[in-house]
């Protein structure tokens, strides 16, 4: 498999983890490119397609967390340099999805990464625990608490809308 094909096959996964975590398309694209450059350097160490997916997730998660720590010093990307966001498929309620994305952005960084890995990548608590180097029970309880927090935030947002209308 040519390297360009590997990039093509995994770019959505890598870019989306970065985008949902960093909430910045420019930063997410830069980070995704860096991940693939690192992969190019270490391609000889990859043993199987499963190992490749695991490696990409792990490196992306680590780079995202590092990037999150440097957030204060992050560079602003000019609007014209950023690729245009793709339109959603339109099946889900766009207002609800927008509110959910806003609420996700306000979560603490580790909690947000857990939610991204759980609901974007469909990983189980054990896999998330391995990627984030945390005990499985901590992941389970944190996910539970994070979902409660998201529900509270969404309810508060709804309250805000109600006041705006009435």
């Amino acid at each position, binding site marked *: 498999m040519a*390297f*360009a094909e590997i*990039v*093509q096959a995994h*770019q*959505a*996964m890598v*870019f*989306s983890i970065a*985008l*949902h975590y960093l909430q910045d398309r420019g930063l*997410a*694209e830069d980070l*995704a*490119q860096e991940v*693939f*450059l690192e992969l*190019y*350097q*270490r*391609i*000889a160490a990859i043993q199987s397609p499963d190992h490749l997916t695991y490696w990409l997730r792990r490196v992306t998660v680590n780079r995202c967390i590092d990037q999150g720590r440097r957030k204060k010093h992050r560079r602003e990307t000019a609007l014209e340099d950023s*690729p*245009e*966001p*793709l339109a*959603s498929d339109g*099946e*889900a*309620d766009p207002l*609800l*999805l927008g*509110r*959910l*994305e806003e609420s*996700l952005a306000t979560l603490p960084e580790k909690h947000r990464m857990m*939610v*991204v890995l759980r*609901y*974007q990548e469909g990983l189980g608590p054990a896999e998330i625990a391995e990627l984030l180097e945390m005990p499985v029970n901590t992941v389970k309880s944190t996910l539970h608490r994070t979902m409660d927090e*998201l*529900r509270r935030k*969404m*309810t508060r*947002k*709804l309250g805000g*809308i109600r006041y705006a209308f009435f």
Partner: protein
Amino acid sequence: MPFSEDDLRAALKRKDPGPGFTQRVMARVGQQEKAAPAPERHRGGWFAWLRPLRLLPALAAVAAVLVLAVASWMGYQRYQSVQIAKARQAEQQAILALRITNAKLNHVFHRVKQSEASDPKIRREVL
């Protein structure tokens, strides 16, 4: 605003980075290749550890083991030959001692014979 796990999955659906992402990555790979030496996979993959810098300590260790082995073999051989020479010397000394004893005994035997022949009284006592 209640939401389900499916709504969360929809909100976190994988998004494509947009057209040209692969080309941009490949362009950066090309730039990196020009700026730096080729990555490990061009140098033999599994055999990358055979690169000279990593090979030198291994070669030095093998050479040291060989020198030690040869030195101990030679020492053992020298010890063996010294032991063999000592054993031969001891053998010669034992043979010489036996010869001297033999000569002395012969001498005594002849003296006893002569005495018997010259003095019949001794002969009678002996019988």
